């Protein structure tokens, strides 16, 4: 028998469930299947389920008699349920402008890695990234799959202000800053799309389990899309997987 999933209490009203501590599509699938199962079983207004790479928190908004035993019971039911259904996901095509105006650290990465800027851009926009979860800021996607050649350590002095839409690389990860914020990643471009819309019923169109591919646009196209986004007339191209 595997030691996983592990179930740990976390405060008065929450339980943490952990699968094997690894970043992999297989582990993510386990997490997302359990998340879906729990969200269907539990009333959404009363329980919040939040997931990351290999774990999820089941947080009861009202204190119930025995959170721990209820979750253990649900997990037993889940393991016996033999869920084969595939989690529905989409591939999103996200435009990025890698122009020098935005790509503040392209030159530095190019020098340190001995890769031309063109090659960095080609590599960065050549793969389908897997969305593991959303965290850090509203709409900030944790993406897996950055080509190894582009792995690059964080800046030793984080910037106080990284502009909204900035596309960065930090260690093995790449991502888009959904709003202006401090940040330590190396900035290589900017995406004009809106990743978080508090006015929408579902504020993030892209979520855990989806895939994302970047495509290069020039400054003019970046500006054009930005205008469309402002008018609410741009939607990110996507296809069902």
């Amino acid at each position: 028998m595997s030691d996983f999933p592990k179930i740990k209490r976390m405060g008065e009203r929450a339980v943490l469930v952990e699968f094997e501590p690894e970043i992999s599509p297989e582990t993510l699938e386990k997490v997302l299947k359990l998340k879906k199962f729990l969200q269907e079983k539990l009333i959404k207004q009363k329980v919040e389920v939040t997931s990351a790479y290999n774990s999820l928190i089941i947080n009861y908004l009202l204190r119930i008699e025995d959170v721990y035993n209820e979750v253990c019971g649900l997990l037993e039911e889940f393991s016996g349920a033999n869920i084969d259904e595939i989690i529905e996901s989409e591939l999103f095509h996200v435009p990025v402008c890698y122009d020098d105006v935005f790509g503040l650290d392209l030159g530095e990465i190019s020098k340190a890695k001995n890769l031309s800027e063109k090659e960095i851009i080609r590599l960065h926009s050549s793969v389908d990234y897997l969305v593991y979860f959303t965290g850090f800021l509203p709409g900030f996607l944790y993406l897996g799959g950055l080509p190894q050649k582009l792995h690059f350590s964080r800046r030793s002095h984080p910037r106080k202000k990284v502009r909204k839409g900035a596309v960065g690389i930090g260690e093995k990860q790449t991502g888009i800053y959904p709003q202006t914020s401090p940040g330590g990643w190396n900035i290589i471009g900017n995406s004009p799309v809106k990743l978080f819309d508090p006015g929408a019923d579902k504020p993030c169109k892209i979520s855990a389990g989806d895939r994302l591919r970047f495509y290069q646009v020039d400054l003019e196209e970046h500006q054009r899309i930005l205008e469309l986004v402002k008018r609410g007339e741009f939607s990110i191209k996507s296809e069902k997987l």
Partner: protein
Amino acid sequence: MMTQVEIIQPGLYSSIQDLGRYGYREFGVPTSGAMDRQAAKLANLLLKNEPEAALLEITLQGPKMAFFGAAKIAITGARLSPELDGVELENNQVVNVLPGQVLGFGKRKSGYRAYLAIKGGFQTGKVLGSRSWYAGVTPNSRLEKGMKLPFLETEPESVFRFSSVKVDEHIASVVVEALPGPEFELLQPSEKEALQKWRFSAAKESNRMGIQFQEKLENKLEAVLTGPVLPGTVQLTPSGTLIALMRDGQTTGGYPRILQLTETGINTLVQKLPGEKIGIKLVEYSQLKK
């Protein structure tokens, strides 16, 4: 009829809060809501408001505001010497306010965060099911001069006082209750002991996102794979800094989560001034009241 209160001076840091925004943490949206939920609930209870009615959270130095219409208000939490047209008010009681009257605050006497509730609740906009202000989600994030907060005008009526000794117990407490967090067992026995023996105090950098402690706990814990966190999760960084995530705290984190504050623990901690000493009282899960 809808009327307004106009902000003449914003004070140090105030914001509209309710009991929080639920169901959006999976999109990276913090829960937000009143830092001291107990004090906030009491303020609404005094006015017979719904528990989730929006109120004003006031930090240390209160704002000054003019009422355009009649209102009933209640102030709870920190004692910040509130006064109406220069006459000092007491916390934990219902007060009638007449059109044109000015509410201000003075010297702090106890606590750090006060709550100003108004009959019917402030009618500022709801975003994603909550009126709690949070930058990036709501248009406003803090009170500013000239802002007008809408509320429903009420008829003045007889008011009552609330015995206020018991309700402020958590504010006077110097003990913050905590349960073991998911990574608590990774600590050395000496580190566990230090947590319970030491006296901690909030650093100046603390805010609604997190309260950092000044005292450092040296440790050899390794980073964990980024996982979900909650308000009240206490993370320990490799440099020894303890960070208690608060109501506006991020939804995931990669530092070991060594403690999880109880709800009462959070409510006590948020009432402490930077530098004020507190102790951590470790509670076992088996000791939790059913």
